[in-house]
C-alpha cells in the first residue's frame, strides 16, 4: 500500500463533479446565454419541487444548491439519476428529520434539483465549462521535441516490422588450410619468405545470423569453430530496442571481453568497456532516459583478443521492471534513426483535477523549459549541417540554414509562418546574429520557448482549420506534433471533412505512439503507480517480490493489449475476460501449471476470473501487506469500474487490524467498522463491491477460506437505477458494469480527460452523452472511442464541426458550446 488505511465516516450524500471548481471560475458571458438561463430559471421556479426545496432543503444547501458555509458546504452537483436522487432524499434527508420528505415530495424535489442545478447538463447550462488554455504537459513536450527534431531525420519514426531479435555479425579470420599451414611452416626457416608471409593479409571470415536475445557463451571457441579462429574476433549486434514505458533504463553488459554499447546514436557509447580486464566476467551498467513506445537504435560491440574465453549477455532494467535479459519481444533487427530525448527533468504536471494537465505554471517549470531548450539547441548545434542537409563551406549553406530554421519553427508552430513572422523570427535573427549557426541556435531557443509551441491552441485564430485539426489530432492520439504525413494532409487541405479527419485518425491508430498513449491511460486509470510499489509481508507471502511484481505487470499489459488491440477492441472484455496470462513463475504462485517458457493464456480452475477486476496485479495493490482490503477494492470498483463518483469524506477512521477480534473475517471487521449510519452512504456502495473480491487474498490468490471460515463474497448491491442487484462474486460485478450506462459514461469521461486534458463539458453539455452513445453503438470499441474522442476535440469549432452539427437532429445540438475567442 502506498497510503495508509482509513475509511470515511461522514455520510455520502451527493456526488461532486471533478470539474465543478474549474467551471466555477468561468463567468457567464454573452447576452444570449444569459437569456437562456433566465427563461430556464423562470420555468423551473414554478416546478412543484421548487417550493419543497426552498422550504426543506435550501437552508443547508443554498437556493441554487451552491452550499451553505458551516452547514453543507459542498455544491449539489453529480451524476445520479433522478430516481437515484429521489431514493437518497427519501432515505437520508433532511438531516435530523429523515422521513419527512418522502414519496411524491422526494420525487418532486429530485426532479427539480436535477434540472435546476444538479445534473451535468444543468451545470453546463448554468456555468458553461470552457476549455482552459493549456501548455504542453511533460509527456507532450518530450514527444513533441523528439518528433520535431525527428522531422529532419526522415524515417526515424518508421514503425518496427514484425521480426524480432538483433542482427549479429561476427568478423574474424579463417582457420588456415593445410596448404597455408604448410606454407607457413616452410617459410619459418626463410626470413625473407617469413616477412613476405607476414605482409600478406590474413583471410577474413564472417558469420551473420539473427540472435533472438544476446547471450553468447563461447568458452575458448570461436563463434564458427569450423571456419574462424578463436584467438581474435569481433562481434556486433545491430538493431533497435523498443522502450515500453517512459523512464530510466539501466542497460547491462556482462562479459569478460571488451564491450561497448551505443543506445540511440553511434557517436558516444553509453557503455565503454572496450579494454578487457582479466578473465572475470564483468557487469558494465549505465542508465539512459527513454520515451515510451519508441524504438532506439542499439549497437553492441564485442572484441575478443587473446582472452581465454568469450561471452556476452545483454540485460536491462526497464522502468517498473527488474534486471532481466533484454527479451526478444523488445529487440528489432532493423536500425531506426536516432531521435532526441530531452533529458532535462521537467516538474510533474498538476494532477489536482484528477488527471495530468498543463494548466499551471511555476518558476521551476519555466526554468526547466529553458534548460530543455538549451539542451535541444546544443544538440541541434552539434549536428546542424547534417540536419540542414549542408556542410561547412558549401556555397548554399546560408540558404540551407535559413530554410532549416524556417521549417523548424513551422513544424513547432504546427502551421506555416506568415510573411511577417518569417521576417521577425527568421530574417531578423540572421541579420542580428554574428554567424548563421548562432542565428539558428537563437531561432531554436526562441521557438522552443515561444507561446506558439508551448500552448498549441494559442494561435488558433491564425490557424487554418486543416492545421488546427492536424495539431489537435496529434496531441489527442500521440501527445505530440503532427508527423510528416499529417502535416502534408493539412497543407494540401485534406483535413476538411469529418470523413477525411476520421481516415487520418485511423491511420494514426496503428502508430506505436498511439499504443504508448493508451498504455499511459491504463497506468492512470488503474492507478498502477500504486501497484508498482506494492510490497507484502515477507513471511506470509515469500514469493511476492520485485520479480513477481514485474511479471504481474507484464501479465496485466498482455491482457490489456490483447483486448484493446484485438479486432473488436471490446471494453466489456476488459471486465469479463475469463483468462489471465501467466508464466512459470506466476503459475507456481497462482496455482496453475505452465508448460512453456513464456506467458500462456490460462483460464483459472476456480472459474471466478473477471478480467481486470481479478487481475492479481491490481488485487495485490488494493490490499494490505498481510490481508485484503475490501475498502480499497470497493473504492476502486466504485470509481473506476462501476462508475459511482464518491464524495470526498471529511473525517478519517483508521483501519487497525490489531483492534479486532482475530477470529473475525475481514468482511466482518469492515462491516463492524463501518456499521454506523453515518458511514452507510459511502460504504453502502463500497463494501458490497469490495466484498465480492474476498475470494482473492492480499496477493490476488484464490481462496475459499479465511480464518478457518468459508469466504462469503455474496452481496446485494443497490444500483443507481434503483435495482437491487445480487452479486455472487466479481464476475457478476463485471457483467453489471459491462451493461451499465453509468459505468460506460464514467469510462468515457476518464478516457476523455486523459486524452484531451480538458473536461468533456467544455465541448458542450451533451458531448459526454453523445460519446457514450457512440461507444455503445460501436460495440464498446475502445479504439473507436479513442478516434471519436480525438475527433470531438479536433473538429471543435471548425467548419467540419458545423457541418456535423447541421446533420444531426436538433436535440443533440449542444446548447452551450462556448464561443471561441
Amino acid at each position, binding site marked *: 500500500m502506498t497510503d495508509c488505511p482509513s475509511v470515511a465516516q461522514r455520510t455520502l450524500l451527493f456526488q461532486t463533479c471533478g470539474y465543478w471548481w474549474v467551471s466555477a471560475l468561468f463567468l457567464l458571458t454573452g447576452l444570449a446565454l444569459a437569456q437562456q438561463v433566465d427563461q430556464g430559471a423562470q420555468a423551473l421556479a414554478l416546478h412543484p419541487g421548487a417550493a419543497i426545496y426552498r422550504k426543506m432543503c435550501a437552508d443547508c444547501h443554498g437556493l441554487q444548491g451552491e452550499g451553505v458555509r458551516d452547514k453543507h458546504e459542498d455544491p449539489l452537483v453529480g451524476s445520479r439519476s433522478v430516481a437515484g436522487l429521489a431514493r437518497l432524499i427519501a432515505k437520508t434527508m433532511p438531516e435530523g428529520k429523515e422521513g419527512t420528505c418522502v414519496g411524491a415530495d422526494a420525487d418532486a424535489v429530485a426532479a427539480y434539483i436535477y434540472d435546476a442545478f444538479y445534473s451535468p447538463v444543468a451545470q453546463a447550462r448554468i456555468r458553461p465549462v470552457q476549455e482552459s488554455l493549456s501548455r504542453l504537459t511533460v509527456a507532450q513536450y518530450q514527444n513533441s521535441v523528439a518528433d520535431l527534431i525527428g522531422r529532419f531525420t526522415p524515417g526515424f519514426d518508421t514503425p518496427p516490422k514484425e521480426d524480432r531479435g538483433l542482427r549479429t555479425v561476427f568478423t574474424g579470420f579463417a582457420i588456415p588450410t593445410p596448404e597455408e599451414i604448410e606454407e607457413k611452416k616452410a617459410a619459418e626457416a626463410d626470413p625473407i619468405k617469413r616477412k613476405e608471409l607476414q605482409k600478406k593479409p590474413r583471410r577474413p571470415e564472417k558469420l551473420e545470423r539473427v540472435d533472438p536475445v544476446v547471450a553468447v557463451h563461447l568458452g575458448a571457441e570461436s563463434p564458427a569453430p569450423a571456419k574462424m579462429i578463436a584467438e581474435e574476433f569481433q562481434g556486433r549486434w545491430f538493431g533497435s530496442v523498443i522502450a515500453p514505458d517512459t523512464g530510466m533504463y539501466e542497460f547491462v553488459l556482462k562479459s569478460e571481453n571488451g564491450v561497448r554499447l551505443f543506445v540511440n546514436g553511434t557517436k558516444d557509447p553509453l557503455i565503454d568497456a572496450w579494454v578487457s580486464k582479466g578473465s572475470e566476467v564483468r557487469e558494465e551498467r549505465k542508465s539512459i532516459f527513454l520515451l515510451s513506445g519508441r524504438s532506439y537504435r542499439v549497437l553492441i560491440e564485442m572484441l575478443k583478443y587473446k582472452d581465454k574465453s568469450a561471452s556476452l549477455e545483454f540485460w536491462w532494467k526497464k522502468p517498473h521492471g527488474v534486471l532481466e535479459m533484454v527479451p526478444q519481444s523488445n529487440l528489432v533487427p532493423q536500425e531506426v534513426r536516432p531521435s532526441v530525448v530531452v533529458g532535462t527533468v521537467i516538474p510533474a504536471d498538476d494532477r489536482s483535477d484528477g488527471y495530468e494537465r498543463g494548466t499551471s505554471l511555476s518558476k521551476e517549470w519555466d526554468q526547466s523549459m529553458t534548460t530543455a531548450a538549451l539542451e535541444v539547441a546544443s544538440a541541434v548545434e552539434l549536428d546542424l549541417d547534417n540536419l540542414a542537409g549542408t556542410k561547412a563551406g558549401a556555397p548554399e549553406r546560408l540558404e540551407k540554414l535559413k530554410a532549416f530554421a524556417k521549417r523548424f519553427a513551422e513544424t513547432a508552430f504546427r502551421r506555416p509562418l506568415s510573411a511577417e513572422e518569417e521576417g521577425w523570427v527568421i530574417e531578423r535573427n540572421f541579420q542580428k546574429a554574428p554567424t548563421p549557426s548562432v542565428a539558428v541556435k537563437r531561432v531554436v531557443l526562441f521557438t522552443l520557448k515561444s507561446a506558439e509551441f508551448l500552448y498549441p491552441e494559442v494561435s488558433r485564430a491564425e490557424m487554418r482549420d486543416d492545421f488546427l485539426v492536424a495539431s489537435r489530432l496529434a496531441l489527442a492520439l500521440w501527445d505530440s506534433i503532427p508527423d510528416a504525413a499529417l502535416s502534408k494532409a493539412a497543407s494540401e487541405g485534406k483535413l476538411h471533412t469529418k470523413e477525411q479527419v476520421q481516415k487520418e485518425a485511423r491511420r494514426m491508430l496503428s502508430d506505436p505512439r498511439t499504443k504508448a498513449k493508451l498504455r499511459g491511460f491504463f497506468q492512470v486509470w488503474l492507478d498502477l503507480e500504486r501497484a508498482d510499489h506494492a510490497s507484502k509481508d515477507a513471511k506470509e507471502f515469500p514469493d511476492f517480490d520485485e520479480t513477481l511484481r514485474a511479471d504481474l505487470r507484464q501479465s496485466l499489459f498482455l491482457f490489456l493489449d490483447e483486448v484493446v488491440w484485438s479486432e473488436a477492441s471490446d471494453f466489456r472484455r476488459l471486465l469479463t475476460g475469463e483468462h489471465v496470462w501467466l508464466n512459470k513463475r506466476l503459475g507456481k504462485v497462482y496455482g496453475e501449471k505452465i508448460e512453456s517458457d513464456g506467458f500462456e493464456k490460462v483460464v483459472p480452475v476456480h472459474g471466478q476470473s473477471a478480467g481486470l477486476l481479478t487481475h492479481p496485479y491490481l488485487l495485490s495493490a488494493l490490499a494490505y501487506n498481510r490481508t485484503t482490503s475490501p475498502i480499497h477494492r470497493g473504492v476502486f470498483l466504485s470509481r473506476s469500474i462501476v462508475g459511482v463518483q464518491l464524495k470526498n469524506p*471529511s473525517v478519517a477512521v483508521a483501519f487497525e487490524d490489531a483492534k479486532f477480534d482475530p477470529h473475525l473475517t475481514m468482511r466482518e471487521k469492515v462491516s463492524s467498522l463501518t456499521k454506523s449510519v453515518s458511514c452507510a452512504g459511502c460504504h453502502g456502495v463500497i463494501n458490497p463491491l469490495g466484498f465480492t473480491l474476498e475470494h482473492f487474498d492480499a496477493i490476488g490468490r484464490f481462496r475459499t477460506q479465511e480464518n478457518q471460515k468459508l469466504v462469503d463474497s455474496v452481496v446485494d448491491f443497490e444500483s443507481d437505477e434503483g435495482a437491487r442487484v445480487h452479486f455472487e462474486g466479481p464476475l457478476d460485478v463485471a457483467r453489471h458494469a459491462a451493461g451499465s450506462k453509468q459505468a460506460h459514461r464514467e469510462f468515457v469521461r476518464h478516457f476523455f480527460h486523459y486524452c484531451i486534458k480538458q473536461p468533456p463539458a467544455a465541448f458542450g453539455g451533451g458531448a459526454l452523452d453523445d460519446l457514450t452513445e457512440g461507444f455503445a453503438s460501436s460495440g464498446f470499441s475502445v479504439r473507436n472511442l479513442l478516434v471519436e474522442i480525438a475527433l470531438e476535440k479536433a473538429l471543435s469549432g471548425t467548419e467540419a464541426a458545423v457541418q456535423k452539427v447541421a446533420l444531426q437532429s436538433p436535440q443533440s445540438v449542444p446548447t452551450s458550446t462556448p464561443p471561441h475567442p
Partner: protein
Amino acid sequence: MNVMHRRQFMRQLGVSAASLPFLSCLPSLTGAPEARRRQRVVIMFSPNGTLPGEFWPDQEGEDFQFKSILEPLEPFKKSTLLLKGVYNRIVGDGDQHMRGMSCLLTASKLLPGNIMGGGGQPAGWAGSISIDQELKRFLQSRPETRTRFGSMEFGVAVPNRSDPWTRMSYLGANQPVAPVDDPYQMFAKMYGQVKDRDSLLSILDDVKEDLRKVSGKLSAWDKQMLEQHVSLVRKMEQELSAPLDQAIEHVMPPPDSGIELINDNTPKISRVQIDLLVNALANDMTRVATLQYMRSVGQAQFRWLGIEEGHHSLSHDPDDNKESFAKLQKINQWFAGEFAYMAQRLSQLPEPGGQGSMLDNTLLIWTNELGKGNSHTHENIPMVLVGGGAGLKMGRSLRFDKAPHNRLWLSLAQVMGHSELTTFGQPDLCVDGPLPLG
C-alpha cells in the same frame, strides 16, 4: 544524429562555468563585517516517522543523553536543541501522511482536491505559505538581507511526481515548490547558465513580446496565464543579469559527472546536494534552504544499509517486529548522519565577513511528517535543532505539552527577525504565542 545525454550536457555546462574568469577564487568584496550578522535557516525533512524510544532522550534540560538514532550528532551535542511535544494539530482533508507532509511547514489545512489518500480522503495542495517561503519573503523584502535566490529547495531521491505527499514548501495556497533533486540541475542553476546567458538574453525579449502578442487575442482568464508566464520570463531575465555582480567566495567544482539519479546512488547524491547547499550558503546565494529526503510514504530502498524493503512498508510494521525495528533504527540513524554531515561542513567553514563558523550563524532543523511510523501520529513530531543561527541557548532537551507546531514556526520567524508575524498558519492554534525556546 547523436542524442544529447543529459550527463554530458551538464558536464559541459559545469566545466565551462567553472572556467569563466569571474568564478575564480576571489576574496570577499564586501569588506567590513555587516552591521547585523547573517542568519540562515535550513530545514531538513526525512519521511515516515521515527522510533520515539530510540529518538527522544529520557532526560530534560541540559544534562541529557542521546538515544541511538541521534548518536551521529554527538560532536554537536552542545549546539543541539531537542523539542519534544510539538504537535501538528491540523485536521481536515487528506490522510495523515498528506497532512503530515503538506501541513508540516504551512501549519494550515489542506485545500479540497482530488488527490486520493488511503481509503479515499482526497485533498489538494496546502492552503497557505510555508514557513521557509515566509522567511524568504521577509528576508527578500529588505535590501540588507536580500540574496540572489532568497530560498533554495534541495531534494534527495524525491520521486518525480507532484502531489501533497511530495511537496512541503509552498509559495502560497495551491503553489507547491518542487525540490530539485538533481545535483546537476542545481549546479546549473547556481553556476551553469552563465555560458548560455548571452544566447538566452538575446531571445528573452522576443519571448516576452511573443507572449504579449498572442495574449491580446485571448479571454481574460487565459490571458492571466500568459501574464504569469511573462512575469516568469522577466524574473529569469533578472536572475540572468544578477550573478555577474556577485563575488563568489567559495568556488564549487562541478559535481562528479558519473552519478546517475537512481535509488542506489542516494548516499552519493545526498552528499553532493549537501555540499552544494553549504556552498550556496557560503556564497550568500540564499539564507533559507530546505533539504527534502524522498517523500512522505516514500518507498526508498536503503540497500546501502543492507535493507531491501521499502521504507514506508517497514514503517508500518509493529514495534515488536525486531527485524523491522532494527532496520528503521538504521534508516533513521543514516538520516541523522547526513544531518550531522551538514552541521560538520558548516562548522568547518569560517563565517564570511563575520564571527565564528558558519554553523554559529545557521540554524539547522531536522523534522519528519509523523511522530511514529506505525501509528501515524502527528504528536511528538521530530524536531532537532542544531547551530547558532537562532541565537538560542543550545545543548538542551526541552519538552512541551502537545504544543501546536504553528507556535514553533512563529518562534522561528521571531528569532529570524520577522517579529511582525503574530500568527502563522491556522490562527486559532497560535493563541498561546511563540513557543518559549529561551
